């Protein structure tokens, strides 16, 4: 065997080595281990710096573009949200707040764990919400969120690896691929938070491929540690109530984007239909892109008034 052949063989061996599959648990294990020793990710450090300039907490609210009404109840909800933002920023701040009488019960509800890492092919940014309330149901929700987040990461890894392989096979270079700077984000949005209710949406997306987006909806009754269903909100005839209002709203729409029932458009909701709860406490039913309308309509939402 010539020196040249041998070198080629070793190069192949290296490729095999680099294909050793990375288990999805790795990232989480590393993040947890580092966290135990007080390591702060860059993102956490940045947040901390932001909190140091206290005024920024208020800006968090503006950034989220929430419009709050004028009633006392909603103003209170706003205060809750601001405190949640502060709480997320710094554990020290969280501790401080939980000592304030009257605020402790609510500000403890939501925290998040965030981490990010990049491996040259992509950057993954994750904010995992965690519901901080005692009870089996919230525990279950936390576990499920955790599972969904790690499944999503695994899938994103596989998607991007496949994409890279195809990209390289069709003449792209490693450098060109790296320059794409692919981002994967897992984040969440709080739709409604009161002392009794927590409604949040977990989102995951990869910026190179919109079809990879996932959204999971959680509606939690903090008061009795259970899932809030459409039936809880709209009563026994919830399917009929929701269907009527959705049909009315589609009929009133003049964009022409909604499919007719014959084209595969809206017919009826089911008990599994996704929804979140808005600030008014009403359920908002959400359909997937393309599910009942053309893509330009995005993800159609329908508020159902109780």
């Amino acid at each position, binding site marked *: *065997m010539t020196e040249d052949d*041998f070198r080629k*063989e*070793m190069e*192949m*061996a*290296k490729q*095999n*080595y*680099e294909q*050793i599959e*990375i*288990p999805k*648990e*790795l*990232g989480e*294990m*590393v*993040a947890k*281990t*580092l966290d135990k*020793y*007080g*390591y*702060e*990710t*860059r993102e956490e450090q940045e947040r901390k710096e932001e909190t140091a300039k206290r005024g920024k907490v208020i800006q968090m609210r503006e950034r989220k573009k929430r419009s709050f009404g004028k009633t006392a109840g909603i103003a209170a909800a706003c205060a809750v949200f601001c405190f949640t933002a502060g709480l997320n920023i710094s554990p020290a701040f969280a501790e401080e707040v939980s000592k304030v009488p009257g605020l402790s019960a609510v500000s403890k509800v939501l925290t998040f764990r965030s*981490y990010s*890492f*990049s*491996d040259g092919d992509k950057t993954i940014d994750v904010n995992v919400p965690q519901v901080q309330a005692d009870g089996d149901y919230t525990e279950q929700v936390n576990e499920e969120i955790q599972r969904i987040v790690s499944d999503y990461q695994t899938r994103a890894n596989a998607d991007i690896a496949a994409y890279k392989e195809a990209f390289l096979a069709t003449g792209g270079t490693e450098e060109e691929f790296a320059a794409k700077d692919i981002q994967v984000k897992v984040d969440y949005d709080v739709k409604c938070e009161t002392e009794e209710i927590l409604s949040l949406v977990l989102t995951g997306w990869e910026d190179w491929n919109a079809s990879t987006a996932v959204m999971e909806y959680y509606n939690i009754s903090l008061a009795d540690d259970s899932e809030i269903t459409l039936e809880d909100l709209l009563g026994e005839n919830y399917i009929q109530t929701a269907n009527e209002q959705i049909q009315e709203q589609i009929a009133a729409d003049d964009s022409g984007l909604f499919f007719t029932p014959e084209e595969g458009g809206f017919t009826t909701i089911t008990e599994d239909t996704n929804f979140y709860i808005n600030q008014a406490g009403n359920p908002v039913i959400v359909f997937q892109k393309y599910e009942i309308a053309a893509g330009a309509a995005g993800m159609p939402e329908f508020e159902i008034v109780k």
Partner: protein
Amino acid sequence: MEQERKSREAVQRIGDYVSENQERFYRLAFSYVREQQAALDIVQNAIVKALEHSEQLRQTEYMKTWFYRILVNESLNYIKKAQREEPREPEQMARLAETEAPEESEEIHEMVLGLPEEMKTVVMLRFYEDMKLEDIARVTGENLSKVKYRLYTGLEKLRKAMGKEAAT
């Protein structure tokens, strides 16, 4: 106070380095034990050791060799311990069998993994991790001539094994 600040800085530096290179660590550990859970344990133990002895870390330029030294030691210790505790564990036997009958495409890589541990370490660090010989010496704690010797005997073995493979 000063001490505390320094140690916090060290934790941050180790953390940044580990987060960035975790997949490399996993691959190396996996190459020793060939088992997902064992490899994860090794990486975790190495991270914990590094963080607990962060005061050893004086110069940034040595971060890489310092951490790899911990990682390689953890891997070798893990193997030794496993052999002591369960010398005839069925799973291990299965793994050995796997080494003897590698898949076509993974032959060379399999041969590397089949090398004796000390040669394997040097060959992997040199070819898979692109480490300089001086750095490898820092990782293994041996002098340079020993590292060279291990590398060349390791490569010689591979070349012979490949020659045989090509002839059949």
